[in-house]
């Protein structure tokens, strides 16, 4: 499974918080340019996995590599946390500008970046003067401000309405395809997983292990989103993954070997 050029490489990674094992041994190799979607029950360890890849947690056992090296926060990976985590002492625009400043980029693209997530006329507002979904979008704009080769997104669209969500999904898919970025994307929406992912990994309940690892071989080029969703393979994948998620969530810790879901 492993490859030297992998953007993200997890080898037998396990992570425990004290005596709570959050992520069971997981081995995953994400080639550069892949759009990996992680799906799994609430509390199964998705965020922990993302934090491991971002370098915020050290694996209890096993090794994590990004771009062949031990991950360090802020080096080569953009991260959207599950919570917006905006700085209240900065305006909305100031939050985005900060990301640009850290990357040494000019800060005049703030409005453009905010417009990219559907936000207009809020750059001067305080972070508590915008709605929950708007905060989430500011966090996305902040993480996307800089072109990192790796993007880690933890349920970024959870607080968005269907329309906005679809637009941003489409944007994200287009951008990542065009620039060849690697994405690791956590979601609870099976539809989103199929629509976005070039590969979908379903995790078991805590401690999260790989229950299903599926390449999504949908023909994407030139298809409008609605056309894509209309494909029969699309529906098939949806139901397959949906099924796997339900299965995996109920799999008990014991019943599952290190290799994945039993046949």
């Amino acid at each position, binding site marked *: 499974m492993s490859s030297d050029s992998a953007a993200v490489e997890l080898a037998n990674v396990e992570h425990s918080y004290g005596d709570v094992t959050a992520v069971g041994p997981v081995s995953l190799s994400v080639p550069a340019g892949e759009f990996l979607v992680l799906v799994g029950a609430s509390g199964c360890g998705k965020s922990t996995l993302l934090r491991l890849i*971002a370098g*915020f947690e050290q694996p209890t056992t096993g090794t994590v590599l990004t771009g062949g090296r031990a991950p360090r*926060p*802020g*080096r080569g*990976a*953009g*991260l959207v*946390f599950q*919570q917006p*985590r*905006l*700085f*209240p*002492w*900065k305006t909305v625009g100031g939050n985005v500008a*900060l*990301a640009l400043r*850290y*990357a040494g980029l000019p800060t005049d693209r703030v409005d453009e970046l905010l417009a990219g997530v559907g936000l207009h006329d809020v750059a001067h507002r*305080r*972070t*508590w003067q915008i709605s929950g979904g708007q905060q989430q979008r500011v966090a996305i704009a*902040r*993480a996307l401000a*800089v072109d990192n080769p790796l993007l880690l997104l933890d349920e970024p669209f959870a607080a968005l309405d269907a329309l906005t969500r679809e637009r941003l999904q489409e944007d994200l898919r287009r951008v990542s395809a065009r620039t060849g970025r690697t994405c690791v994307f956590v979601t609870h929406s099976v539809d989103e997983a199929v629509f976005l992912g070039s590969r979908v990994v379903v995790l078991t309940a805590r401690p999260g292990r790989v229950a299903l690892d599926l390449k999504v071989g949908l023909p994407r080029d030139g298809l409008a989103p609605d056309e894509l969703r209309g494909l029969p393979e699309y529906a098939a994948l949806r139901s397959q993954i949906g099924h796997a998620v339900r299965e995996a969530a109920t799999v008990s810790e014991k019943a599952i070997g290190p290799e994945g879901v039993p046949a």
Partner: protein
Amino acid sequence: MSIIAPVRPTTEPATGGARTARAKGGRRRVLLRVVALLVLYALWEITARVTRNPVFIPGPGAVWHQLIVTSTTHDGVRGYSGHLLIEHLGVSLRRILIGSVIGVAAGLVLGVVMGTVGWIRVVAEPVVTFVRALPPLAYFSLFIIWFGIDETPKLWLLSIAALPPVAVATAAAVYSAPTGLVEAARALGAGRWQIVRDVVLPNALPEIFTGIRLAVGVAYSSVVAAETINGVPGIGGLIRDAQRYSQTDVVVLGLFAIGLSGLLIDALLRTAETRLIPWRGRS
């Protein structure tokens, strides 16, 4: 709402109703303060009359008279001990100001460094705790020996008095920087000092301001100690002189000068605080 979550003028732009409510609140505030002042004044006047001993409790009239005497040139004598009250106050305020600024700046640096750099905290924290327990009156004579009798020892004393509140408050606030936001900054690629500047310090700002307000207060209340030696002109020297001759009315006048100017400075600090920290209660 009025009780627990007070009106925050800068954060929530007013609706029509709220605007009048705030104007009313302002008027009510002034009224309350005026009433409180009058009550205090009446209490004072009554106590003074009942005690009938101007050495213990000089009446408002006597203090007012001294205000005039010490603010003018009478019988060829300028004010008190050759300086007008305002000059005494000015000299002391200058000392307090310089001492506070030095103390606050040093405390800030020390607090940030102690809050962020592990080994400095380990070494410096006990030293700071040790020093802030020491009574200025005890080590002031050492200052005299080291720095002479002019401005230097006074400024040292005031600076050292003003340092601990800022250092301790800053270090505590910096030490408990919000993990979530620090992580967010790191994820954006912030370096160590960028994190300090953009997350740790802004987050600590409310506590730092509390520290500064306390520091200025401590500097104020140390001014008499600082001016025990060669303290004239100076409001502390004036008070001590007056004390020695049981001129209680002058002492009380000096206390008023200190207290009122302290009030003024604190009001300035609070205004700055409200301006600089619109996110109070929002993090």
